[in-house]
């Protein structure tokens, strides 16, 4: 297992290097420059490009950038959004909020999803099953930003239970609405997958055997059914995390959350290269990390699946 994890980590690092290179390369092809303001003359633009070293050849710039990233964790400075400030400082100040709300949504979504999945999978074709299925269909079809707007209108504006915008001094309370908005899709997907898988598992021979032995039904479902069915949930954790990241771009805007999603959008609009690179890099790293965890979890939950030989 240790060997397997070590190998995966090495592979992840190599992937991140390639990602950094591709990001750097892609931004070369982005039209315009960060200093493309109405009022700057061509001479001034040239001075600014030189000041930030943007006039040097591509590979030299990449080499310098790579060294700064690896040795100092320095992703360069912002050209437009926060002039001359370190991008790492800006991103780190916002990363915590984004990741926390994302994790809250994942936790809430998966918990509710497992609950509904177990209910509808084990009480198949009852009213509870129908309810859970309907909720799942709605959750999959409504985009998170629509839900975000509805929630802030009803709970924030009409009934004034929650704050409409995210408040830095009340980080938990004011993050409840965005958490719910983001978790809905996670909940729906988890419910759907778990239900299907649970029905299949509960119909299998080994569960019938346990049943025949006279083990209590709840125990059968949780111990034998759920544990096996959870594999399917873990499989979709990776894609769900990606969905949370992209969903957060809009949800952050609606609730005024100072997160990295909204920062990325802004960075792209104003050609703030280093901001774009660092956030895209962080997103990639998060995604790779989640996938690594998922692979490890496979092994923990189901010893039959061990990716590496002898792991």
């Amino acid at each position, binding site marked *: 297992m240790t060997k397997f994890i070590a190998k995966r980590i090495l592979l992840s690092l190599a992937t991140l290097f390639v990602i950094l290179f591709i990001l750097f390369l892609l931004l070369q092809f982005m*039209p*315009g*420059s960060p*200093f*493309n*303001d*109405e*009022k*700057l*003359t*061509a001479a*001034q633009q040239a*001075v*600014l490009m030189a*000041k930030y070293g943007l006039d040097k050849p591509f590979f030299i710039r990449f080499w310098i950038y790579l060294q700064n990233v690896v040795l100092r964790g320095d992703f360069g400075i912002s050209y*437009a*959004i*926060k*002039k*001359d*400030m370190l991008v790492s400082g*800006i991103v780190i*100040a*916002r990363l915590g909020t984004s990741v926390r709300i994302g994790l809250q949504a994942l936790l*809430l979504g998966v*918990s509710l999803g497992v*609950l509904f999945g*177990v209910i509808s999978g084990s009480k198949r074709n009852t009213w509870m099953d129908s309810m859970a299925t309907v909720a799942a269909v709605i959750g999959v079809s409504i985009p998170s930003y629509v839900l975000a*707007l509805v929630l*802030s*209108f009803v709970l*924030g*504006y009409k009934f*004034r239970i*929650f*704050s*409409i*915008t*995210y408040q*830095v001094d*009340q980080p*938990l*309370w*004011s993050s*409840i609405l965005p958490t719910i908005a983001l978790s809905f899709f996670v909940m729906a997907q988890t419910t759907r997958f778990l239900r299907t898988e649970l029905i299949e598992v509960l119909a299998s021979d080994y569960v019938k055997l346990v049943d025949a032995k006279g083990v209590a039904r*709840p125990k059968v479902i*949780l111990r034998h059914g759920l544990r096996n069915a959870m594999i399917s949930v873990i499989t979709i954790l990776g894609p769900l995390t990606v969905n949370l990241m992209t969903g957060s771009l809009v949800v952050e*805007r*609606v*609730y*005024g959350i*100072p*997160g990295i999603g*909204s*920062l990325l959008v*802004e960075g792209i*609009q*104003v*050609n703030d290269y280093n901001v774009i690179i660092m956030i895209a890099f962080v997103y990639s790293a998060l995604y790779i990390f989640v996938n690594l965890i998922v692979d490890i979890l496979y092994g923990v939950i189901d010893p039959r699946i061990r990716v590496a030989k002898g792991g």
Partner: protein
Amino acid sequence: MKHLKRLLLSLVVLVLAVGCAPAKEETEQVLRIAKDNDVSSLDTNVATDGLSFEVIKTFTEGLMEYDADGNIVPGVALDYEVSADGTVYTFNLRDDAKWSNGDPVTAADFVFSWRRLVDPALATEYSYMAEGIMIKNATAVIKGEKPLTELGVAALDATTFQVTLDAAVPYFIQLMTFPVFHPLNEAFVTAKGDAYAKSADALLSNGPWVVTEWTEGTKIRVEKNDTYWNADEISLDAIEFLIIKDYQTAALQFENGEVDMAKISADLVDRYKDEDFFETKKLGYTWYVAPNQLVAELQNENLRLALATSFDKSFITESILHDGSNVADYIVPIGLATGPDGKDFRDGAETFLSFDAAKALEYWNAAKAELGVETLTLELLVDDAADTKAVSEFLQTEWQTNLPGLTVTIQVQPKKNRLQLMRDGTYQLGLTRWGPDYADPFTYLGDLFQTGVNYNYGRFSDAEYDALVQSTAPGGALSTDAAARWAALHEAEAILLEQAGILPTWQSGEAMLVNPDVSGYEFHVVGQPSYRNVVKK
């Protein structure tokens, strides 16, 4: 099932434990303003965007300031003298102006700030303004050809600041209200080094308020500065700039009483336009279509005239934008500049290129005959913003309907790319705008449409126009004869528009929700809004 119940129970407990939102209690006067963008820098010399300047204005003060009616009144300066040829300004500073650390504000603080503005090592974007007002040696210093000490500024003594210009600049004094020319405390800036102006505690104030909180992507709070010389006249205890990018959210926050002022987008105007807290104001931006005269067909005057007069501008302002924008049959906007006669430049001035479908058709037929074509396809380049996209679709429809045989395609680009394409001259028709930096028609007529200037995207060129505008430029033949200069500027505008050198479209407005308990908010068409006289009941 026991596990499930426990899980459910713990979730309920978690939600309850987070608790109810504590109620806010308020005794001090705090103005809360929702902003749709964030500040990019609070460094006086480095900042470039509107919000940054607006915030900087709350905690710094320049030589001169605007009063409620838009007149220029003394700030840190008590008064000033101008030499007979208009090239040397000597400012006498008040001796009771202080920095928030107790230091006096001196002439040396202005010298330091102005030199820093043109320092090639800092390479500030707004250094061009020092060139624009023709400070002696500014251009050479910016290029690194002369040392900073050669810049035409001097501290004659602690309270006497002198500026030497290369030529008389008619709008010099009003630019002294502009934040990039505000003073900086050298000892403080030097001590902070690279960290200067990058956090709330790395800033010093000589204005009505001082920055006490700057939270990334969330808010900036300024609180009353007791060391400010005129602190007794300031009524607001604090101002909070809250970054809320979504207009819908900002409007809901306004309705909940969480913010006092919020800008809203066109789609929200219908919901609020009859409320007593709904306000619109005119901005100094004129939007226009620049026809690129590098494109052979667009060199045809009749074609440009046909394009300019064939769309109903009032539909754009009333049905698409409806935010207080108005039809622009001119280029120098209403409210931009007051002339020597004390009247606005537009007051009683001629208008041009009004919508007239019948006349447009005549121009179009003439153009087709001259060009020897029956059909023509043109491409319109626009920003990817919601309002400009909507306007471009309307223009497309109007042009294709009123000028039969014309096909217009639309190319949507992010603003920075759009600017690049227009600058390179690789476009046909481009919808663009200009934000004035100073209250003088020259910011439009001189900076935009002379032959060969940087922002003359459409490559408009007319010898008579160039000569007239040159005579009104700093150091030009008319630079000290205000009345004749004004007449020349009117004439230049006529030359530009009578041949449809550009196609004026609308003058921007802005729709806002403003708490009726707030009074004394001063908005200026050029320059930053002022909160000095704001009172919140």
